[in-house]
């Protein structure tokens, strides 16, 4: 029933090959774009089929492994290319191929006229292939292959405009940061494989076997080390606190790329990985605490930076980092279902926001181009009042903004509120959960603030674009707007499949489909938590309603503040900046984190290696080698001079030799 699963990743790969090898010859853009999108559509259809087949199975057996071929077998270690079909992976392939297809469609229009057209689409298809591989892989090694493949494609796509030095640098930075994460991931795999193998003789890296043998692992100790390593990998990939600086720079790439990779799919790989290995993470409370804290801090921290950015894509980038913080917060508190739910909803509205901003930038770029002015097409200060020029984009953008800021009824609200509730109510980390909830709520407020600030600055008020370009602003073509509309719809409707129980039975017992759907995947951790008395936390309904109310209230406050600052009286922000210049400059320059990294890690590393090369390699080692040669040459010079050419010296040395020999033997 699942034998055509290998088609899902294979179709984008075929697309990549066609466009990669023949792309140069097929000059016609629509053909290239068509092939690429068709392939992703095909894989979307097959994933729907698979989802449908999976749903037809009864609850427990929803876990099927399909082996394609055995990849590496050497001694005790063997890894083969095989796919794991279970509710989690089905959900992910649906999201990836669905959103991916929409973004492919969108980029046909958006990338119109670019000279590396075929190269863009082949990389995009390769990305989809790697992401599907990551999600479908049934063992850690195959997931790692997808993991690095995705990192590679993000490097290629960020560096798409390679003639721009900043794009190339951003690509390299992204790849290196991911690579640091992969270092952690690799260590996790090795420790897990070694520990399970050497102490329990279970030589495996496949998820199903790991799940079944997870009871062998002791809580804390080695498991904490393993899970921390995996978490390091996750932070690298999903841009959490220590390793997030590459995401804002990744905006150098084309906007659909940011939408697909840096919003919907790749960055969520970390979350997926933790969800996939929930039975490991649940066994070490310390790691969960770390994840939760980092998630919350990232959410808050990124939100603060988002408020002060002027580039439309930078704001969205920091918003993504902050939303990812939320997902990790959910994972940290053990609410894996909620995390995945937020992942899905975030994919919809963030993709919609990015594509919307792309549409805005596209038309701004066109207009400025006509007016031959080289203002920055992405700077919000040059925009304003676009709602009349681009009504459809405005509406979809507004819907997505409402979703993200957590206004009830929209998808954002359900998933974010679920996370906040779980954060508040879980007993794992003692008093920590109040702090977590607080940070989460504050971040939600800030999110609402900067999202609406963005909306007001771009779509409301008078148009600040250079006068000549004003009349060239026009709605984007249908191929760009259509995906916007679908995504906006999804971001509105998306929330209903996972309505929290409290609200559900208010409206006549609508069950939380998602929770129910994802149960088989998280049953191990559920049992473990039940075993350890996790859910004895506070359960009264009233508290839940209270919290929900407060979060909605905070969101509304954020919106009103945004409205007052940026629509009602424009002067205040300027005065605010004048009042606290230091704070504003710090926030605007991303708390100088990038400069910090450069001075602590990058420059000293360069200096040290310069020293190593010039100092150690050349002077010490080469010096020693040449030194030996020089000393030999020197004493050869001395020996040479002993040869004075005088017979008496020669005779003397002979006689001396005889005398020495004789006396030695006599005295012996």
């Amino acid at each position, binding site marked *: 029933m699942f034998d055509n699963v290998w088609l899902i990743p294979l179709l984008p790969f075929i697309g990549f090959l066609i466009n990669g090898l023949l792309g*140069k010859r097929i000059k016609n853009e629509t053909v290239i774009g068509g092939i690429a999108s068709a392939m992703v559509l095909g894989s979307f259809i097959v994933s729907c089929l698979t989802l449908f087949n999976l749903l037809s199975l009864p609850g427990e057996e929803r876990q099927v492994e399909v082996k394609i*071929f*055995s*990849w*590496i*077998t*050497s*001694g*005790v*270690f063997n890894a083969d290319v095989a796919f794991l079909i279970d509710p989690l992976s089905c959900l992910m392939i649906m999201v990836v191929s669905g959103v991916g297809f929409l973004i492919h469609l969108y980029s046909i229009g958006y990338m119109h006229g670019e000279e590396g057209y075929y190269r863009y689409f082949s990389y995009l298809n390769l990305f989809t292939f790697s992401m599907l591989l990551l999600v479908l892989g049934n063992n850690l*090694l195959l997931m*790692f*292959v997808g993991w*690095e*493949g995705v990192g*590679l494609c993000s*490097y290629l796509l960020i*560096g798409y405009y*390679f*003639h721009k*030095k900043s794009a*190339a*640098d951003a*690509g*390299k930075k992204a*790849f*290196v940061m991911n*690579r*640091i994460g*992969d*270092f952690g991931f*690799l*260590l996790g*795999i*090795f*420790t897990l*494989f*070694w520990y399970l*193998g*050497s102490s329990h003789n279970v030589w495996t890296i496949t998820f199903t076997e790991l799940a079944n043998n997870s009871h062998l692992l002791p809580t804390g100790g080695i498991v904490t080390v393993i899970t921390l390593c995996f978490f390091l990998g996750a932070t690298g990939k999903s841009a959490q606190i220590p390793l997030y600086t590459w995401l804002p720079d990744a905006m150098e790439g084309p906007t659909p790329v940011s939408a697909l990779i840096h919003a919907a799919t790749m960055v969520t790989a970390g979350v997926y990985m933790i969800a996939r290995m929930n039975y490991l993470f649940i066994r070490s409370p310390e790691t969960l605490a770390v994840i939760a804290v980092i998630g919350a801090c990232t959410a808050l921290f990124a939100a603060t930076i988002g408020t002060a950015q002027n580039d439309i894509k930078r704001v969205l980038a920091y918003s993504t980092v902050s939303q990812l913080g939320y997902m990790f917060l959910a994972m940290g508190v053990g609410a894996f279902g909620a995390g995945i739910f937020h992942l899905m909803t975030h994919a919809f509205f963030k993709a919609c926001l990015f594509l919307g901003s792309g549409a805005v930038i596209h038309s701004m770029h066109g207009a400025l181009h006509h007016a031959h002015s080289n203002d920055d097409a992405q700077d919000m200060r040059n925009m304003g009042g676009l709602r009349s020029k681009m009504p459809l984009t405005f509406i979809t953008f507004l819907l997505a903004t409402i979703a993200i800021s957590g206004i009830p009824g929209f998808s954002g609200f359900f998933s974010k509120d679920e996370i906040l509730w779980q954060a508040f109510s879980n007993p794992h980390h003692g008093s920590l959960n109040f702090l977590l909830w607080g940070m989460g709520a504050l971040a939600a407020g800030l999110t609402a603030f900067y999202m609406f600030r963005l909306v007001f600055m771009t779509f409301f008020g008078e148009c600040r674009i250079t006068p000549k370009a004003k009349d060239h602003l026009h709605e984007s073509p249908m191929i760009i707007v259509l995906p916007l509309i679908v995504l906006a719809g999804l971001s509105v409707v998306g929330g209903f499949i996972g309505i929290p129980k409290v609200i559900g039975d208010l409206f006549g017992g609508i069950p939380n489909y998602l929770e129910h759907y994802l149960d088989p995947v998280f049953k191990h951790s559920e049992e473990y938590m039940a075993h350890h008395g996790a859910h004895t936390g506070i359960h009264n309904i009233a508290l839940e309603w209270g919290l929900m109310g407060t979060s909605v209230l905070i969101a509304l406050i954020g919106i009103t503040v945004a409205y007052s600052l940026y629509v009602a009286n424009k002067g205040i922000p300027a005065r605010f900046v004048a009042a606290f210049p230091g704070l504003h400059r710090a926030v605007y320059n991303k708390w100088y984190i990038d400069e910090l990294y450069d001075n602590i890690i990058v420059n000293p*590393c*360069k200096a*040290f*290696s*310069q020293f*190593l*090369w010039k100092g*150690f*390699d050349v002077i010490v*080692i*080469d010096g020693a*080698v040449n030194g030996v040669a020089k000393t030999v040459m020197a004493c050869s010079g001395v020996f040479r001079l002993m040869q004075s050419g005088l017979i008496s010296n020669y005779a003397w040395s002979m006689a001396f030799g005889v005398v020495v020999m004789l006396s030695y033997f006599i005295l012996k």
Partner: protein
Amino acid sequence: MSYILSLTTFLPILGVLLLFFIPKESKSVLRGFTFAVTLVTFLASLLILFGFQTNAEFQFVENVPWIAAGPFVMRYNIGVDGISLWLVILTTFIMPLSVLSTWKAVEDKVKEYMICLLILETSLIGAFISIDMFLFYIYWELMLIPMYFMIGIWGGKNRLYATMKFFIYTMVGSLLMLVAFIYLYMLGSQAGIPDFSVLHFYNLRIDPTIQVWMFMAFALAFAIKVPMFPLHTWLPDAHTEAPTAGSVILAAIMLKMGTYGYVRFAMPLFPEAAHRFAPLLATLAVIGIIYAALVAMVQEDVKKLVAYSSVAHLGFVMLGLFAFNVQGMTGSMLQMLNHGISTGALFLIVGFIYERRHTRLISDFGGLAKQMPVFATIFMIVTLSSIGVPGTNGFVGEFLILIGGYESELRWWAVVATSGVIFAAVYMLWMFQRVMFGELNNPKNQKLLDLDAREIAIMLPLVVLIFVMGVYPNPFIEKMDPAIQKLVAHIRPASMNAKILPAALQSLPVGHPAMPGHSGMEESTAPSAASGQLPAGHPGIPAEGQSSEPVVNPHESK
């Protein structure tokens, strides 16, 4: 047919003889003929590959008496097993490509250049297939001569310094090994071993204290060749001065001679000493990885950068070897092949841009991707393989080495080595970005032509192999697995014994030549351990837990 091995080895020499008849002026005929010879050799080696049954025995063995004088009996004893099979194939595979790459590179004295290449091929193949240690030593030294001439005559500016340093550096190491060879033979002849074949010596129980000295001599010679950390300074000089084909062969095949030496001679002959030295050599390997990566980051010359990168890669291989388990060994054997392909390809690429711009400084390039798109894609694929991105061959080898290392006692070494993965990405991508991306402002770069048909023909097989070995490495691993299992089974018990039982008890101190008591003049380290004399006929008591009968290959005629 049983003479295929000698045929493959001496086909290039046949080519050399025929080359003499071709006049010096007709360069293209010379190049064409040499290419044909190397191609035929490659086909012959494919015959070996297909005829090779996957088991741990030596196959295609030829054993003909050669020198029998005085205490020594040397036989022309050659054969190929799982370990050396792929290295021979790698040699015959790389040679035609490097010959092809000299079409525009070498203009003057083409005939001598081709002769050097062919002699080099013979000595390399010979070294890989020789079972007789003396024969191995002869090929081991013979390969230095053609490389010496290639670097010396067709090299860069200060080629004389580089080539002299290369020759003497390797020579000192190998001469110390010669003394160890002789001493080993003396021990062997006392234990009744008839000739120089290495198989007999595998079961010779040597007293651990002697083993330490002997292992040091062998390890030094091979460490210089690998090159390991402190002894690597000859490699960057040799590479920057060598012509393209020369440095391709030097990097792709000659460096493997060092690691092959460890696998074939140093470790199996002296298991206890190998285990005792494992931490030290692993530390040097890991330092090598990090140190070479860091130094590579700040290089201005592309070729030097690639040279240091190969020091780092081979650091990985050494780490894998000293893991003493099947994954580690398989990983390092695979990494030897991968390194041969990826670094060989990298040097070819550097050669292409050198032929066009006659400069190797990174600062002279920039923005070539727009000017030479095909070149950019191939360069990108090879860089990824060198970094070890999954899907390419580099990853499989590195992963196996690290997981093998992690699983053995060298756990913390493997952790540090994994960080090497990051540095590999840093210096390769930084170089790639400075050469290929960025503005195309240098006028000279604007006129560069993309790769022509010949150059693409060179790079295509390499790129295909990169992906094939990355996606489906099993056929390669299958062929070498039994031989590696046997090797690990041979080495592993030595470590248990060394730890559990005190050295004196577990290995009967055999083979220490009963020498007339000599006064202090000769401070040789022959220990005073009692020299229990083994019955002459019996080739040494096999170590516990290992196949009793020493594996004497079936058709070895006495």
